[in-house]
């Protein structure tokens, strides 16, 4: 601990121990605890307490009967726990203090115990100190375990949860060491703490009260999830009959927790070879309702080594609701071997038909589970791609009313799902995931057709349209190429011809979310297919590029930003409207550059300006025709606009662009990362004087020097990196001290001083390369980089500042803290 903090600590402790001096801010106490935790993790807590006796005095204060606030009491309990985590310090505090805090004589049973924060502090304190054998003896002796048992049912969610975690932790700790091997099933061989906890768990599992069963299951879930020692196998052997008994009850108590426990056990490397476990899982799958069984089925399918029959059963559970949908739609369940044997049981049908919310809930969960399963290597094989596609399409058709099922169940499903946005979104997400694999052409055509219906429908909500665009993109990008030809296949081509007018319409939507999703789709599809002749043709014969350009002036800034990105992409790939008049060939292209520059300097919002900077950086990187026409002029104009920007991210992006220009101008042999500052290789050539001249002409140095003292740290950091890179590339090659002390250098350094002080000052004017090099040489850029690496509030956030603030705030901030907003 630094001396200044040591000096302030006694005053802090006396403030905390004084009930007449309320501590103003809860957050301060949390920060103090974090600080003490850091200190004790880094060194000896015992030494800390010996050097700062005020801390022990503070803890003793808690034992004295007085009206200490609940938050200080809670703080002290947690603090004591942090110190007592080290065994020598525990022994130092054990005599009177720890029993007084955590034993029966402590806050348990006193009036303060009614405050949840005290109970929480008590639990957290114990959680911290329970790290060593001495702590276990203490816990067994002081009767704390019984209190922890009762706190499992606490009215506070946080206390109850922490109590369960603490029990799992203590159980794990007590079984460590001598009992680490394979204890017998018989209780007498187990350590006292473990015996007591396991006894309590057994009792809870036998209880007829569901909350108690849930608590026990949760403790076991944590135990089996976190601890994979051999003793857990014995524990499971001992408790599994009780868990099996739960399965015989109807309704199943604590179904969610039971599923969590069984999956936790199945995932444990120590336990997963247990045959009885697989039988229990199979039995549970049969017992659970379709809604409850989904997570278990998914969990089983994610397991690595699981019997095939169980996997098939689990997969059947997941597929059942979709099989019902297919059956209701009067579709054959699919080619043999896919949804074979799964025709939808009556319970699933009943759930689906019971109410709108139950139907939507079950379908959404099922689709989400299958979506998670699809990309996994351990997913069932063969994967029933075609029926799943069919089911997703059918659900979407039920939702938008385009299906006309003949069966009663189908009719009822149609009525329940009509216009159900929740199911539409889930089905579109799932449909998008299925694009990873192809299906029969007939089905793929159906997929495109249902996507088109959704994109076209005036009833589709903005969120549905967004998902429909995303799913469409995924299907488009996964569509097969015609063999032997690099262009799109005829079906895709046909689809695009229908899609573009829809996109056109959506770009004119009154809803900004829809316009934006449309533009995002356009950008993505162009990025991937901009080079495909088929796509180019369809796009250029539509009005989409013109509409996208018009959206550069959209009233909504998000849309303007997306339009900038889309137009940048179109232009990069030569897809920007080519309606230039014959007198001004390329006139339109020019106008886009001008328009983007206008946005950069005039738009009142940051998003479009940031988007412009990204487009410009990409253009410079790619050697876009408009940029290469006069790169220096382009860079100079962009940097000038960026340097004035109020948004630091625009200025930071300006430095990114400067860096690209720098790398292009100076050449960047061998080094991929421009920030990698390494001594230049002997093989490197000295940058030609013209290159440095070019950097001076675009006023890159002034931009970077100003940015170095930017009030926003990321900008300064980026500039520092840029200048370090530049110095590494240039200075060793320059002659010794060419311009040092020259009037130019002095004036630049004076300007730098002014900027450092936060003053503005006039522009630097034209600089000579020698001046710049001399300035670069004289700057302590490494030191600056070190300073910038720390967060901008590191001084205010330091422990010393915290202690000062707590002391200064005593009695001052009482009124202020209520006025948060």
């Amino acid at each position: 601990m630094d001396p200044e903090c040591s000096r302030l600590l006694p005053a802090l402790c006396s403030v905390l121990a004084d009930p007449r001096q309320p501590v103003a801010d809860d957050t301060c106490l949390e920060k103090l605890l974090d600080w003490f935790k850091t200190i004790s993790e880094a060194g000896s807590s015992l030494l800390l307490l010996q050097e700062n006796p005020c801390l022990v005095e503070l803890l003793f204060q808690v034992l004295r009967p007085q009206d200490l606030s609940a938050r200080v009491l809670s703080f002290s309990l947690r603090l004591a726990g942090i110190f007592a985590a080290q065994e020598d310090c525990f022994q130092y505090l054990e005599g009177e203090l720890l029993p007084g805090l955590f034993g029966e004589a402590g806050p348990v049973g006193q009036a303060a115990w009614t405050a949840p924060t005290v109970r929480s502090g008590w639990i957290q304190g114990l959680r911290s100190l329970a790290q060593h054998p001495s702590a276990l003896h203490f816990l067994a002796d002081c009767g704390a375990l019984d209190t922890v048992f009762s706190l499992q049912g606490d009215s506070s969610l946080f206390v109850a949860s922490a109590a369960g975690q603490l029990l799992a932790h203590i159980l794990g700790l007590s079984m460590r060491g001598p009992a680490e091997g394979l204890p017998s099933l018989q209780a007498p061989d187990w350590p006292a703490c473990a015996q007591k906890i396991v006894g309590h768990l057994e009792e809870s599992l036998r209880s007829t009260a569901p909350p108690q069963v849930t608590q026990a299951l949760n403790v076991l879930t944590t135990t089996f999830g976190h601890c994979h020692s051999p003793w857990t196998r014995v524990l499971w052997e001992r408790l599994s009959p009780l868990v099996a008994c739960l399965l015989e009850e109807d309704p199943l108590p604590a179904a969610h927790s039971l599923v969590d426990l069984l999956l936790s056990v199945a995932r444990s490397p120590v336990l997963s070879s247990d045959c009885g476990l697989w039988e229990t899982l199979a039995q549970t799958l049969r017992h659970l309702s379709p809604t409850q069984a989904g997570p278990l089925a998914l969990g089983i399918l994610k397991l690595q080594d699981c019997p095939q029959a169980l996997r098939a059963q689990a997969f059947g559970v997941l597929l059942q609701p979709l099989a019902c949908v297919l059956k209701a739609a009067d579709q054959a369940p699919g080619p043999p071997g896919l949804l074979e044997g799964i025709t939808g049981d009556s319970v699933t049908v009943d759930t689906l038909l019971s109410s709108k919310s139950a139907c939507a809930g079950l379908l959404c969960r099922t689709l989400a589970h299958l979506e998670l399963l699809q990309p996994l290597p351990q997913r069932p094989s063969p994967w029933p791609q075609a029926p799943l596609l069919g089911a997703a399409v059918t659900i979407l058709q039920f939702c938008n009313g385009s299906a006309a099922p003949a069966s009663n169940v189908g009719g009822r499903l149609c009525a329940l799902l009509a216009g159900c946005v929740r199911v539409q979104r889930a089905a579109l997400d799932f449909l998008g995931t299925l694009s990873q694999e192809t299906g029969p052409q007939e089905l793929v055509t159906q997929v495109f057709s249902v996507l088109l219906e959704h994109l076209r429908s005036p009833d589709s909500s903005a969120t549905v349209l967004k998902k429909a665009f995303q799913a469409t993109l995924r299907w488009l990008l996964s569509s097969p190429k015609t063999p032997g030809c690099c262009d799109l296949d005829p079906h895709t081509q046909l689809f695009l011809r229908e899609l573009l007018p829809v996109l056109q319409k959506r770009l004119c939507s009154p809803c900004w979310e829809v316009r934006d999703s449309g533009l995002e789709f356009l950008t993505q599809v162009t990025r991937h297919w901009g080079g495909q002749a088929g796509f180019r043709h369809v796009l250029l014969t539509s009005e989409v590029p013109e509409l996208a350009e018009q959206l550069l002036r959209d009233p909504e800034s998000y849309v303007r930003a997306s339009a900038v990105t889309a137009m940048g992409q179109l232009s990069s790939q030569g897809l920007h409207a080519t309606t230039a008049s014959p007198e001004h060939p390329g006139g339109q292209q020019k106008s886009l550059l001008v328009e983007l520059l206008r946005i950069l300097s005039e738009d009142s919002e940051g998003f479009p300006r940031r988007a412009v900077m990204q487009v410009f950086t990409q253009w410079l990187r790619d050697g876009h025709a408009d940029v290469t026409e006069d790169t220096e002029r382009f860079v100079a104009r962009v940097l000038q606009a960026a340097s004035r920007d109020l948004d630091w991210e625009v200025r930071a992006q300006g430095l990114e662009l400067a860096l690209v220009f720098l790398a292009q101008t100076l050449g960047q042999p061998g080094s991929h990362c421009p920030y990698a500052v390494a001594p230049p290789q002997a093989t490197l050539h000295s940058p030609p004087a013209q290159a440095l001249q070019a950097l001076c002409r675009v006023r890159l140095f002034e931009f970077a020097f100003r940015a170095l003292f930017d009030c926003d740290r990321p900008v300064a950091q980026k500039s520092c990196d840029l200048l370090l890179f530049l110095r590494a590339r240039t200075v060793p090659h320059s002659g010794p001290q060419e311009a040092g002390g020259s009037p130019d250098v002095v004036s630049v350094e004076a300007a730098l001083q002014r900027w450092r002080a936060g003053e503005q000052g006039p522009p630097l004017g034209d600089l000579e390369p020698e001046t710049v090099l001399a300035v670069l040489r004289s700057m302590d850029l490494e030191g600056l980089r070190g300073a910038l690496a720390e967060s901008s509030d590191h001084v205010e956030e330091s422990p010393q500042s915290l202690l000062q603030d707590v002391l200064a705030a005593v009695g001052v901030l009482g009124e202020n803290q209520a006025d948060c907003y």
Partner: protein
Amino acid sequence: MWAEAASWSPLRARTSCWTVGCTWALTTTIPGLGASGSDPWSGDSGHGGGGRRQRRFPDFSYITRNGRLTDFLDCVIISHFHLDHCGALPYFSEMVGYDGPIYMTHPTQAICPILLEDYRKIAVDKKGEANFFTSQMIKDCMKKVVAVRLHQTVQVDDELEIKAYYAGHVLGAAMFQIKVGSESVVYTGDYNMTPDRHLGAAWIDKCRPNLLITESTYATTIRDSKRCRERDFLKKVHETVERGGKVLIPVFALGRAQELCILLETFWERMNLKAPIYFSTGLTEKANHYYKLFITWTNQKIRKTFVQRNMFEFKHIKAFDRAFADNPGPMVVFATPGMLHAGQSLQIFRKWAGNEKNMVIMPGYCVQGTVGHKILSGQRKLEMEGRQVLEVKMQVEYMSFSAHADAKGIMQLVGQAEPESVLLVHGEAKKMEFLKQKIEQEFRVNCYMPANGETVTLPTSPSIPVGISLGLLKREMAQGLLPDTRKPRLLHGTLIVKDSSFRLVSSEQALKELGLAEHQLRFTCRVQLHDSRKEQETATRVYSHLKSILKDHCVQHLPDGSVTVESILVQAAAHSEDPGTKVLLVSWTYQDEELGSYLTALLKKGLPQAPS
């Protein structure tokens, strides 16, 4: 600190409120959920444990450990744009993965992303946070928002509906009524019951919710008139400017900034003052734009004046340029952020702090770890980077302009809504205890004040609407009794529960609708009689006896020897073992239960002696 995202699980008929707000980037503890920072159980939710920075957002794994949030929550409701009510929203929807609907009013929808973006930029700028939500996430989150109008009933699904009421607190702030069937909860968010310079007072109709969840920031305070605070503020600004000093007012871009701007603008106009007033950031233009756009959400005075002049078209307040800070002479600058913890406000503060003629006015709370907190707690020598010490000679003032209901206002709202019970949140325990007693005494309702994370269970008596079939009603009417609302009437019928709806129909109709066959249920009883005669003679004696007693009933002696009284059937049989005893088998339907019982009792007494 609180925010909201209400979930209603209609099938279990319970509500649970979860918070989606967060504390500021700097106030990292006691967020709405999970103050402990440790994950419940699984320990793998991705953001548990660790230090304070990892605890910036609430721990949503308390809602569900392994499941998807979307399956557990029907919707998220955001009451207003303050970051302690919406700051974690993009994290919640884009990083934790909530994919359901998010409801807020139109102004909140417009302003929320500005503040979230501001929050993100400061977090990334100050701390170099890498694992923070991005601009794209804010946008994607805002695309999930469904905007609602005041008093519009929004059907979230077929069971859950919500309705927004004006809350006053800031532009677009709303209280929400959340309703399932006949049960409802009102969640106030933050509200203000007295109109201020640009907003009106909160209002709710007599919706009589089962529960009113109200904030209680000023649970015991009766606040002095805001006019006094405004006068004080203007006096201080004026005095400083008059003596040639500069005034710095650190603000967040929206909310209080607009209120103070109107105040200064009017004052400058009235006093014909010339000192420039600047607003430091481009954000304000947009903020003011929204205040203009949502003029209907402001108070009546602003709306009325709007016809002649828009209050938000400021004549005296100009955009600030960094170079202006060095200009000589007096000026007033509104600069962001509001706690002097980064950016322009801090930069200007550093420049001006050394001059005793200058003044900084903090119009809101500052959290520990900010320069704002330090100067408000009286520290005058601040350590800056590189061991530099900044001596604060400028005057430091604190002015509270927060717009919350005081104790009187809270009582007023409870009176307006007439809830069955009240739950206090967003306040200090001691003060809440006082208010709780006051509410219980005055309104005779239960009042709760659970700690963060505590569960409250409320009993309700839901009324379940049941449709009655026309046939059944007609039958009732045929009995000549007209319906009378004051007198409850007993109505017999068959209750059909189907597709979550309840209907009472006649049993015939129920049988027909459900395709069921009717079964008859008969009660039977055996009565033993000492009679050595033959069965037929005993039956005749029974007939004569009943005929003589039950004169008003139809008593018949059937050819097969059995006797009937209405639906009651009596048969005589010989006792299998004792020839001197006869057994009477009596059976009746449930409609004749009374008569059947009476008759059995009668027969048990024996038959009158027959003349021998």
